[in-house]
């Protein structure tokens, strides 16, 4: 329905394409696309949550749209303010529920079967390598871990995508991030993410795609890749992508019914920037308030008193994250002066926590286990910080006032530092508690 004549360019001169270019080209019905070109592309999945869907529904109705272009390509997830934190939140979820019923959207996730969207969607087989995925949540870039082009959009975008199934994109240049070296003990995807963002800065990858490559990435688990790509937006990137490989194939083997076409970069693909990291000696990382780019080695902030540790979120919400934190706690109790809030990210992760014995361990240690929710990560509920309280979170943002009172402070870290900190009552290294 949209005129494209004025955008079509001669592309014979375009040689190598990055993963981001290839996926956008395929979805725009083109052989190739040029960096900075505007294209209209068909989307494979549209994600909305309880906090962004209601505004989109208003836009959708205002425009006179009355049906979703393909209900199977739409997923609605209750995760931000659920179980409803107050009456206003309850209205948001109700709006989404009624919209799902009206539009015949089967991928509607209700409390109890739901979970944090960015952990839920890969585990439900709703995102695949080579897909073009949009979501009205900025951390939608997470699915790049599977080799998808996946990016956050706003509510007008989502309403348009619901109605017509395609959106405009400016083809981003790609920054190649090559990582070498074996990650030391305790150090994982979160430390890698904070370290890279610390180097690039919070706008170091503005409007760009980040492609993570190199031996360290090839050896990184899918959980670690999801964490890494989740944080790409914190460098300003449109998306973070890992080329599909054996780890990806293994992950997707859980869904034998799904077909997909993996995309990898051409050998002569052109990158707008390249950065090389050697992580053989990378210390555990902590990002100080109020930016995720304020990353420093944990030793620089050790001894900082912490009132609340939050373990979970779309960034570090997999079983492996909870296991790493428990290992770092070494069977010890939560410090009497500190609270540990454990948030399993989905129903499945909750069950794994129970079956593995970790739920019992955390509870006996003095932690509280909450329901799957984004709650404390957005300062919404289940652990909001008071004036001048200090938190250490495995979440992705530590902006002013995001997690509670504007004078509260949040340090970001991975699960190993979170576990050690919960035991010590102050920021700590797991080998030194």
């Amino acid at each position, binding site marked *: *329905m*949209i*005129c494209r004549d*004025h*955008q079509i360019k001669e592309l014979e001169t375009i040689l190598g394409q990055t993963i981001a270019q290839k996926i956008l080209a395929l979805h725009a019905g083109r052989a190739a696309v040029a960096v900075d070109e*505007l294209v209209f592309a068909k989307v494979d999945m549209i994600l909305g949550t309880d*906090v*962004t869907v*209601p*505004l989109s529904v*208003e*836009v959708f109705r*205002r*425009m006179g749209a009355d049906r979703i272009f393909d209900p199977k390509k739409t997923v609605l997830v209750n995760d*931000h*303010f659920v179980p409803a934190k107050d009456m*206003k*939140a309850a*209205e*948001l979820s109700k709006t989404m529920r009624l919209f799902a019923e009206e539009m015949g959207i089967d991928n509607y996730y209700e409390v109890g079967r739901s979970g944090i969207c960015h952990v839920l969607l890969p585990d439900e087989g709703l995102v695949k390598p080579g897909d073009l995925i949009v*979501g*009205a*949540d*900025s951390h*939608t870039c997470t699915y790049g871990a599977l080799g998808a082009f996946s*990016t*956050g*959009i*706003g*509510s*007008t*975008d989502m*309403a*348009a995508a619901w*109605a*017509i199934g395609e959106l*405009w994109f*400016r083809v981003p240049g790609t920054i190649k991030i090559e990582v070498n070296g074996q990650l030391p003990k305790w150090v994982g995807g979160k430390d890698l993410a904070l370290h890279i963002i610390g180097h690039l800065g*919070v*706008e170091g990858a*503005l*409007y760009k795609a980040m492609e993570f490559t190199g031996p360290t990435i090839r050896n990184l688990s899918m959980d670690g890749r999801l964490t890494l790509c989740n944080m790409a*937006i914190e460098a*300003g*990137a*449109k998306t973070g992508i890992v080329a599909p490989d054996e780890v990806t194939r293994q992950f997707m083997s859980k869904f034998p019914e799904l077909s997909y076409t993996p995309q990898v970069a051409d050998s002569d693909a052109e990158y707008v920037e390249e950065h090389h990291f050697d992580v053989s000696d990378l210390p555990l990382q902590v990002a100080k308030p109020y*930016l995720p780019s304020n990353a420093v080695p944990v030793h620089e902030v050790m001894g900082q008193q912490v009132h609340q540790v939050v373990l979970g979120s779309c960034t570090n919400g997999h079983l492996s994250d909870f296991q790493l934190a428990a290992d770092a706690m070494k069977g010890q109790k939560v410090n009497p002066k500190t609270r540990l809030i454990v948030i399993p990210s989905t129903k499945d992760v909750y069950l794994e926590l129970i079956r593995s014995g970790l739920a019992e361990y955390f509870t006996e240690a003095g932690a509280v286990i909450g329901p799957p929710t984004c709650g404390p990560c*957005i*300062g*919404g509920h289940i652990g909001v910080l008071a004036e001048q309280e200090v938190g250490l979170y495995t979440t992705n*943002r530590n*902006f*002013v*006032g*995001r997690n509670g009172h*504007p004078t509260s402070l949040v340090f970001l870290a991975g699960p190993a530092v979170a576990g050690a900190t919960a035991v010590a009552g102050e920021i700590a290294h797991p080998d030194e508690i």
Partner: protein
Amino acid sequence: MSIKPTHFKSRIWLVDEDNIDTDMIFHNKHLHITKLDEMGQHTFGNLPGWEDLPQKAQDGDLLVVGGNFGAGSSRQQAVDCFTALGIPLIIGESFGAIYKRNAINAGVALAECPGITDSGLTSGDVIDVNMETGEIKCDAKSITLQAKPFSQVQMDIYQAGGLFEYGKSVS
């Protein structure tokens, strides 16, 4: 054909700070609000020193901001709240990627103008902005700046009054 202005002459508010995120612009505690009329009063509610902008801003005022404005979440209220206040144009050193597309889609004009926060402009100055050429002028201070003009598609969406109107106009 154009129904939205591409030329602005008005006074500015200069918010000279980088990395102002969407939680500072429109805090998550107000995300239940979906009506435009109710959004304006919460603008900059979590940005120390600027909480009173909704009371001070007048219809037609322009906003000048630093780098990476609108970083963070995808919430569109962080764009719509300025529409509610009658602020038709935001000029910044740079914008968060999602914020920029939200503004374009919602029919709010954005201009990227590297160097504007160091140009000598201060709050209260009156500037002339031509979105077709990207030229920004402040006659009183003899300042001339060059912003990046919108691309054709971005201008088309903006002039149509937003993404949906644009889609209807070309279908």
